[in-house]
């Protein structure tokens, strides 16, 4: 058990170091690039970026709660004409609480935020962000479908894969600097529920909103796109 935890800590630490080194590397490149910035070059580059997939993510994201871990770290990509679509990937940490071991959960999320409203010069408000996310938990006690020892269709759901839906809002604040690595910070909140909570709620008036709905908070650091 102890061995498992140390291995888990190692994985988390190595992921963190990869994360930090990516940011570090990108920042070095960024400061070199500043000296050769030309207007045409910027425009051209932006046109190419808008039409092609970029390996460097559009943002890094940190989230609190959300049925995917106590805290989650991830990265994602914005796309679409107004960047109304985003896809992100998060790694969440679930402390052990009253069970035997801490858990790691992986999340793939698709977000749609159709409207951007400019509030002040550097503040934008997205009145709606909504979408779905799939979450899977690492650990052999969780299965995608019931193991073979069970009779056919004994348990017809998965303990390993959760489908969640969410709806929320976000604010973003653009930094004054035109050359900083991160161009803006975005904070969001989501109300979410999962397939299993929803099915429980549909059949029972007993469950109230605070039982089957959850709240999550997040921060996105948007990387400057030239």
């Amino acid at each position, binding site marked *: 058990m102890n061995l498992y935890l140390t291995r888990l800590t190692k994985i988390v630490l190595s992921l963190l170091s990869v994360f930090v080194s990516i940011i570090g590397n990108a920042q070095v490149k960024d400061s070199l690039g500043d000296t050769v910035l030309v207007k045409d070059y910027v425009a051209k580059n932006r046109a190419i970026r808008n039409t092609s997939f970029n390996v460097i993510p559009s943002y890094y994201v940190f989230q609190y709660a959300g*049925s995917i871990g106590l805290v989650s770290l991830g990265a994602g990509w914005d796309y679409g004409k107004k960047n109304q679509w985003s896809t992100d990937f998060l790694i969440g940490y679930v402390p052990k609480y*009253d069970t035997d071991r801490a858990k790691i959960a992986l999340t793939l999320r698709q977000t749609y935020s159709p409207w951007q409203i400019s509030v002040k010069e550097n503040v934008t408000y997205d009145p709606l962000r909504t979408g779905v996310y799939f979450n899977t*938990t690492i650990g052999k006690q969780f299965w995608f479908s019931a193991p073979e020892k069970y009779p056919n269709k004994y*348990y017809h759901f998965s303990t390993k894969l959760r489908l969640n839906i969410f709806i929320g809002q976000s604010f973003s604040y653009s930094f004054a600097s035109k050359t900083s690595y991160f161009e803006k910070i975005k904070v969001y909140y989501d109300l979410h529920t999962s397939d299993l909570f929803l099915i429980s709620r549909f059949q029972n008036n007993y469950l109230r909103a605070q039982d089957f709905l959850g*709240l999550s908070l997040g921060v996105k650091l948007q990387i400057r796109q030239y």
Partner: protein
Amino acid sequence: MKLIYRYAIIIGIFLLQSCELFDIHPYSGNITGRKNINAANSQLIESRYSQRDTIRYAFISDSQRWYDELEDFVKSANKRNDIDFIIHGGDLADFGLTKEFLWQRDILEKLVMPYVVLLGNHDCLANGEKVFEQVFGPANFSFIAGKTKFLCLNTNALESDYSNPVPDFSFIKQEEQKEADNHDKTVVLMHARPTSEQFNNNVADVFQYSIKQFPNLLYCNNGHDHRYQTEDIFNDGITYYGTPNIGKRQYLLFTITKDAYTHELISY
């Protein structure tokens, strides 16, 4: 200015910690509220009814995803004043989610009489058994009400492997030798009965033999099959009474007197 930020952060962290709206993970195992309920309630049953010749209890089971019906049961049981205690035959959770156990516990906590809960097969899913143990207690336990011993056994063998014996014969043997002088009758309770696909049927006969070693085994109670059953499975005079799932708005009411017992199927 800096002080204001610092206060904001402290208040923010406090809000994050206290607000139950934040869901960490479906299988977080984050248990809030009352724990270790079976031990406390068993003690209550033992002390409250120790001098009684006649005891009456309701046996309910399989309340997974039937919150409305379980709540109605609690209301209807609380209105009667002739039930001494309640035994739940297991399957509180349907998916093994941590919150399912807490939601069901919070409904049962509204009972005015003591209650105990057995482990069901659905309660074992994912890390459910661990959560069950924390909230209610060990999967095998016993208590004495009046002059009757109630032996509550984990029989969900399909959910287990050989490292965790189900049924646990060493527990049964240990119980047989314990406090044999303060009871003269025995009732054995379980979630899945012998012949069920959950039960380790390879040892069904041995199981039956070992529970019959207890003083004056009256009958057995089981859940799991979601229907009312009365069957002398082994043709040896020991009847297994199965109770319907709570979704049917039914339960079994048992009355044990000095030298007899009766049961009744109650609809509410």
